[in-house]
């Protein structure tokens, strides 16, 4: 095994500092007691975290985003598992086209999807509907779920299923008692990844949210274009903490490198 030389390590340190700098600065500024965006040196304060709760619109958006991401991720799993099963195990006309269609949100810019959803909703009178917003998010996050679920179907040892079948189990029993437990890690990983992606989504959502359904990233974007105060830093710090927690769970359970590297 070769080692990295001093130049390589210096380069690495610079890259890591570059990657972490904005996140660290946010987390520091969030604790400032001042009214300006300054890094606290002598005293720390939680006033800007308290300030969030004096903005009911931020709290409402946070709750809204939580519901949205939970519903969208769950529905996406409900669609992806049977779809992955069909694409992995059956040969049927249109199989490749469907597979490409399911993965297409990865190639189509979210901006274009947002514009397209807005046009559809304007025509069918669905603008501002929470249910349709959920449906949009399902479409955008399904590729991530589908990939992980497909990967666990492909890596599955079929002999256990065949054994159960030979012993007289019905198709449904085999799926429920043998197949499902084996693909469970893929499903859980997919759900979490979908949840995070939905919770963070901005570019598509900004076109299709109405004042009642504004998600947290959209609210933050609107707020940041108008004014910048340490409260934004406090909200951002909370989001970083939430993401870090989800990342730890993902990493412990499946290895984050596997999930993210497997994803494009």
């Amino acid at each position, binding site marked *: 095994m070769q080692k*990295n030389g001093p130049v390589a390590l210096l380069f690495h340190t610079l890259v*890591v500092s570059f990657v972490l700098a904005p996140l660290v600065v946010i987390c520091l500024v969030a604790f400032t007691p001042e009214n300006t965006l300054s890094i606290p040196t002598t005293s720390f304060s939680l006033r800007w975290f308290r300030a969030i709760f004096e903005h009911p619109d931020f709290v409402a958006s946070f709750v809204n985003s939580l519901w949205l991401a939970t519903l969208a991720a769950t529905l996406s799993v409900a669609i992806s598992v049977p779809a992955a099963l069909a694409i992995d195990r059956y040969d049927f006309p249109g199989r490749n086209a469907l597979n490409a269609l399911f993965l297409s949100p990865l190639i189509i810019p979210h901006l274009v999807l947002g514009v397209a*959803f807005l046009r559809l909703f304007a025509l069918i009178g669905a603008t501002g509907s929470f249910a349709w917003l959920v449906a949009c998010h399902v479409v955008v996050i399904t590729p991530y779920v589908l990939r992980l679920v497909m990967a666990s179907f492909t890596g599955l040892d079929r002999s256990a299923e065949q054994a159960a079948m030979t012993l007289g189990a019905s198709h449904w029993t085999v799926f429920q008692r043998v197949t499902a437990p084996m693909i469970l890690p893929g499903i859980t990983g997919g759900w979490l990844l979908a949840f995070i992606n939905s919770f963070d989504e901005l570019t598509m959502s900004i076109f299709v949210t109405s004042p009642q359904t504004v998600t947290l990233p959209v609210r933050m974007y609107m707020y940041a274009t108008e004014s910048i105060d340490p409260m934004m830093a406090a909200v951002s710090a909370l989001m970083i903490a939430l993401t870090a927690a989800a990342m730890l769970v993902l990493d412990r359970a499946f290895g984050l490198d596997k999930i993210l590297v497997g994803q494009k």
Partner: protein
Amino acid sequence: MSVGRSAATPFWLVGPGGLLFLGLIVLPLVLTVILSFHVYDHTTGIKNEFTLAHYAAVFSDDYYLGIFWRTLRLAALTTLICAVIGAPEAYILSRMRDPWRSVFLLVIIGPLLVSVVVRAFGWSMLLGSTGLVNQTLQALGFDSVRLLYTETAIVIALVHVMLPFMVIPVWTALQKLDPMVEAAAWSLGASHFTALRRVVLPQVSLGMLSGSLIVFGLSASAFAIPGLLGGRRLKMAATLVYDEYMHELNWPLGATIAIIVLAANLVIMLAYNRVIETRARKALG
């Protein structure tokens, strides 16, 4: 192989998802293409007549061409910088030992999961007129520079957001390379540089190609970064579409620009795929 009882089983399984995607991908896109041909009138709104005027306007007006040119230029610059930083970083990571290797891989690709708004906001604090970068410059005796709301700020933040997309494919490519091959090159008398160029680089370049494809596509359609770090005047394609929709209310024109962004994206993807396929075929001999 098949466990199904009838030919209809797969259709029942993919049916719900397939219908959802047909209804929410294919249909809205078709509607948007149609919308881009609709006549728009500033007093009466969208009319039920069709025209090519929006496409003609976008391709002949210097204002739009300037924004497209900036979008392409900044996306290309971001891709280049990501390749120059990301590929060596992936190589360095691959030569680390555990646990450092997994820790730093997490550090580099983990920010991918943090909302883009949060990261853009972090950079606007760092690059602002009283931000940390300017404070450091002043402390070192330099004049403060205007960074926020410049193209430089956009590129810095874009590189930050896109870097994982370059590191991941290069890392994946390097995982397939047996480190002993590099060692073999040395023992056969190759210098470190020659070994890097003739053994590691060919393996890495495929990863860099697919990384560049993703980085370029995502940068060219980035919204939050130019929106928060470019200000109101420095627009890129995505912020332009947003303005046409939300401020000018000229939906057909906005749709036209969105369709152009989509078409450009698809053309670049196909071209890249062609290149990658040809190279892979050559590599197989």
